[in-house]
């Protein structure tokens, strides 16, 4: 299938494959090391923690796809595009794991990349509305750059009024330390 018809089931199966492989490889390494080294766990810990990370990624992928499948119909297109962007980007960024022993080919990775660019173009007109939909109140956002009305530059000039440095034209520290030196020069 193409990235457009890559089903939820297939996605989950692919993540399960990669995660299972990462976990079992780490366990094999641990098993071998345990027979010879007292600090086997420590010597395998980087691979073990990476395997754990895959387990959590798999959980997130599974739960996100499952939750979106229960979303209202009119929201599904935008949510699915976002989910695919998250998932495809995860796969492309970790393509080595997906390509091990030829599980995925370079052509398939290219297909996923196309999926990412497609998703980004689809999201572009909706981007501001998606973040608006998070409904984060200005009190919480505490940001001149992110203000809802978009009036960033007038906002920045407002912000300058709070700076104590602007209370005096010449800073006290300048008068105290630099002015005497400059006068001597």
């Amino acid at each position, binding site marked *: 299938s193409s990235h457009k018809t890559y089903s939820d089931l297939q996605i989950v199966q*692919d993540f399960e494959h990669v995660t299972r492989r990462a976990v079992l490889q780490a366990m094999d390494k641990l098993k071998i090391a345990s027979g010879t080294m007292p600090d086997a766990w420590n010597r395998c810990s980087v691979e073990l923690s990476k395997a754990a990370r895959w387990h959590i990624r798999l959980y997130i992928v599974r739960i996100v796809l499952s939750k979106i499948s229960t979303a209202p119909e009119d929201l599904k297109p*935008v949510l699915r595009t976002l989910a695919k962007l998250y998932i495809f980007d995860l796969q492309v960024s970790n393509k080595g794991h997906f390509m091990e022993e030829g599980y995925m080919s370079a052509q398939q990775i290219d297909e996923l990349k196309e999926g990412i660019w497609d998703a980004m173009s689809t999201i572009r007109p909706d981007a501001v509305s998606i973040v608006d939909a998070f409904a984060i109140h200005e*009190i919480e*956002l505490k940001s001149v750059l*992110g203000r809802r009305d978009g*009036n960033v530059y007038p906002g920045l000039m407002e912000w300058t009024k709070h700076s104590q440095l602007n209370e005096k034209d010449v800073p006290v520290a300048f008068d105290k330390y630099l002015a005497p030196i400059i006068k001597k020069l």
Partner: protein
Amino acid sequence: NPDITEERLKATFDVDRFTEFYHGGLKRLKSRRKVERYLEEHAELRDIRPTPFMSRDELIDNSIRKLAGMAKFNEMIDLNDIEKTTYFLQMVHVRDSMPFSLHYLMFLPVLNSQASPEQLATWMPLALSGTVIGTYAQTEMGHGTNLSKLETTATYDPNTQEFILHTPTISGAKWWPGSLGKFCNHAIIVANLWTQGKCEGPHPFWVQIRDSETHEALKNVRLGDIGPKLSLNGSDNGYLIFDNFRIPRENMLMRHSKVLPDGTYVKPPHSKLAYGGMVFVRSMMVRDIANHLANAVTIATRYSAVRRQGEPVPGKGEVKILDYQTQQYRIFPYIAKAIAFRIAGEELQVIFREVSKQLKKGEASQLPDIHALSSGLKALVTFEVQQGIEQCRLACGGHGYSHASGIPELSAFSCGSCTYEGDNLVLMLQVAKYLTKAVTSPVASGICAYLHKKSSALQSAL
């Protein structure tokens, strides 16, 4: 601003319906909006000026001012509606923290899950009235996640029916950047329990550390502030040392395990029951930290829609930076992650509630699953949120470095979450340990069932 209005007119979906979905339904959204209106109507609960302009003392003063004022607004504090309460506190104190932050986030939930019904009847009214300001002190200067090696001891003396709390070395000093040093008068202290000459491992104790009226440190308790932190400076960075400090036997939290008057230790029905509090906090953390990423992508996206830079076609004017694919690739994957992590955090809370119900019935078989899941999610989400906020900062160019963007505060707050409530790498290794058990057990079910399956195909069907 016409540029941002133009963006809003392009939407291909119903924004309000998305908001409803994102916040888990209309009821929760309405409750949230009620809190927001309340804040809008009560200026005394808001900051006098933007907090980045405040010194540490001013920040603490500002937090206490709002906190003291909150007594008048107790209608917004309802422990039966933890969601509304935490949102209210979050909106009042945003990311500055305050002396009561840990009181609501950890002290009360741990008390609720670890105290016996009799203890709850005595302490909960005090804790809710505000006469008790509590925090949770498990970490020590020299020990974090490895609980079994905590140095603080609670040795039971059957003659007086008291526990003697003691800090044997400086590395055993309790260290908790959640108001332990200056503002709290009580703490739930985790110490290694010794009774009848035997160490029974770490257990939680209700401990008064300051006088309720004078607020002075009690005798044989030494405590103070270590100094400023990268963030959360509305609460102090406390340390606490006990010098053979005595507390009554009844101050051990005894829902699951007990020490009888003669010193006999009664084991909990399940060894991991004490982890309930940690799981609760981590389940809250995942959603909250995802929310920080949502804040950051909101800032970066809106700014990118009004900021114009470059003129690809001469004479056609500068373009919105959001139209550059590189800018989109900086922000959009993190918009997607913010949603994915929020969904995962919400689900974790659903599972936590389910497991809590089972625990009350004495059924603890799912506790290792959720303990591992909450540990792993906390570790992965906090780390990736941190990376996402940094990308959003870069997406805002030079202004992202300014506190005016709001991003430095989000970044500083979020990076703390990579180490508090368990260092991320240690947590990932706990997940790995859980996976080793799942792989070697004859049957794996639930979220580990895939480990016992075979790949359905040699190649991806993509």
